[in-house]
């Protein structure tokens, strides 16, 4: 499912909201999550999960084409930890 299908589903559920308005809202929510993490914060959505950053150590890698060794600097990556409720929900009907 893509964002546009999700937008349609949600627009149906909320009276008086157009698809365009719903789209702006959903974009804004995900933008806000990204911004919070970009500031070094974390986002906790009870029942759904938590978003935070994880550290990756510096490492040496190789350019697969040339075989040359390159240094990969340490960096942060987005990490999502699924919430208890969602973890249980996806296992309810299998």
């Amino acid at each position, binding site marked *: 499912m893509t*964002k546009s299908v999700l937008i349609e589903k949600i627009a149906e*559920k909320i009276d008086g909201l157009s698809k365009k308005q719903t789209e702006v809202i959903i974009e804004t*929510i995900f933008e806000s*999550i990204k911004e919070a993490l970009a*500031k070094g*914060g974390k986002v906790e959505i009870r029942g759904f999960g938590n978003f935070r950053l994880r550290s990756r150590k510096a490492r040496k890698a190789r350019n697969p084409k040339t075989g040359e060794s390159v240094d990969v600097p340490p960096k942060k990556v987005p990490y999502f930890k699924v919430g208890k409720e969602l973890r249980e929900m996806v296992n309810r009907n299998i």
Partner: protein
Amino acid sequence: MTKADLADKLYEKIGLPKKETAAIVEILFDSMKHILSEGESIKITGFGTFLVRKKSARKGRNPKTGTELEIEQRRVVTFKPSLQFKELVEKV
């Protein structure tokens, strides 16, 4: 940041009444939970993809007691951030 703060952001950024924004945030994550629990993945362009992956049954061990036990087949949700998201935070 919590759901309430996300609702506040919606108020600040697009001026929706606070009462409505809280309900919308709730509906969004609720809908996503239901879609994922049907086994369907969700791709949010510019943000990332929530994937539902199947894990087959395997034998495991209770790390405390060492007793062997059967871990049943299950589904797990994973998140693969978009390139854009990864680039935004890599130097934080």
